[in-house]
């Protein structure tokens, strides 16, 4: 079946300079099994399973309308699941509302709050809404780290889209949650800004030890950032193929292995879209 088509790509990776770790060795932070969801007239998920290793960067790519966003809605608890299990470090949970941070295409900053207050929102909510000094040091350090220093008192309307998204990232980090769900976090940004934010996303994994699960339309982005790429089928969504990437980051898209992989994934996606 599909596996045979990707065998050559896999071989390329395994015989290459970089040794490929076996994915089973890594501890699963999140294990989703047999997840299902039906909307009237449309079966979005039926028996979908996925494991996300701790401190890994997993990217989900799939044709539009395949159910990726519904999958995230089930994970975050926005939409109740029909069936299946969500396990967090072996413990069954209804949804990840209490354990995951979430970031999406829209920065979702509150337009009336200065950037620093926006970033501190998770801390403030945790204290029942009271504005307190706690967390400010950490947020300020992150502002410095992400190049937002000096813009703490600006309201979101006064800064660029890239800066707003950086601020949303700081806010995500202020959640103090190990798993970060990213729903096309950079797709609203221009190419140059996106590039600089790739580095920031990698920082989340390497420096802040977060586990990242990202939905993206951008195959290149997935290839540059992820440790594992999961290619999804048209709804009802299933895993068509998964790739481990173990080359050292930051990567360059001009890497021949990556280019071949990109070609292969795009072909698969095209096939799925035309179904």
């Amino acid at each position, binding site marked *: 079946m599909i596996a045979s088509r990707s065998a050559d790509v896999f071989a390329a990776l395994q015989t290459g300079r970089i040794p490929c770790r076996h994915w089973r060795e890594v501890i699963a932070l999140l294990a989703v099994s047999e997840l299902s969801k039906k909307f009237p007239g449309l079966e979005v998920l039926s028996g979908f399973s996925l494991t996300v290793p701790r401190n890994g960067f997993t990217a989900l790519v799939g044709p539009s309308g395949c159910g990726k966003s519904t999958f995230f809605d089930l994970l975050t608890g926005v939409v109740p699941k029909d069936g299946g299990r969500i396990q967090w470090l072996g413990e069954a949970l209804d949804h990840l*509302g209490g354990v995951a*941070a*979430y970031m*999406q295409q829209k920065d*979702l900053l*509150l*337009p009336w709050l200065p950037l620093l207050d926006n970033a501190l929102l998770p801390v403030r*909510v945790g204290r029942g*809404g009271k504005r307190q000094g706690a967390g400010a040091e950490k947020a300020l350090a992150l502002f410095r780290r992400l190049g937002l220093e000096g813009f703490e008192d600006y309201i979101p309307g006064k800064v660029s889209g890239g800066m707003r998204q950086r601020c949303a990232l700081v806010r995500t980090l202020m*959640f103090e949650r190990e798993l970060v769900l990213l729903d096309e976090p950079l797709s609203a940004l221009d190419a140059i800004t996106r590039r600089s934010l790739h580095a920031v996303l990698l920082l989340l994994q390497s420096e802040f030890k977060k586990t990242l699960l990202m939905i993206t339309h951008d195959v290149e982005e997935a290839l540059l950032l992820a440790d594992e790429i999961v290619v999804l089928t048209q709804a009802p969504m299933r895993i068509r193929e998964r790739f481990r990437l173990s080359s050292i980051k930051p990567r360059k898209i001009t890497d021949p292995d990556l280019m071949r992989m990109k070609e292969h994934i795009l072909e698969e996606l095209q096939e799925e879209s035309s179904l």
Partner: protein
Amino acid sequence: MKRSRLVSLALILGMLAVWEGYCRVFRIPDFILPTPSEILLTTVTRTGLLAPHAAVTALEIVLGIVLSLLVAIPLAVMMFSHPSVEEALSPFLVASQSIPVFALAPLLVIWLGYGIASKVLMAAIIIFFPITVSLLEGFKNCGAEYVVLFRLMGAGFWTRLRLLYWPWALPYFFAGLKVGVTVATIGAVIGEWVGSQQGLGYLMIQSNARLRVDMVFAAILWLSLMGLGMWKLVNILERKVIRWK
């Protein structure tokens, strides 16, 4: 001065000039239609009489606004947090708006007396509906993704209300308040017409009976200036509160 301002000023002056000329040329008696210059003269020279009445009416309006806010804000929050409450109440709310305030005024005066209370209630009844509706609309308009974000942060309803829904609804609230303050004068003045011992409405009725039409106009002028002033005040407040737009 801006061009549009100049045009509106010219329009007003033109209208007043036509009015003045008409009265003078056709020798219209004072007790039917006084000239603008006479009205202006009365307005200025009889300030001593007008001001205390205006103060009473202003107090009624302000208290009416405060009262309506005290009802409208909790009501909008309750209707927002419990959709069943909204479903149950909205027919009554809409029905209450189709009853002419004029019909209620005599009853309120019977129940609450000739004092200030009946007028305050009249003003409040008129204002509370636009404020409740616009505030509720503002709450409902809050972006669903923001609500999800706040839920993920573990925010309960009251935290969300404080940090998200309320600031989000503020522009809507001010839109309602602006409508409210301008129509509040109607409630207070009708209340005064029906039965009172002071206020600009009372002054109008009294002057009308004595054919002091110039005084009626002077009272109307004061009323509209008061309405304009309150509108301005709300606008200034809005700009102070909503800095992000």
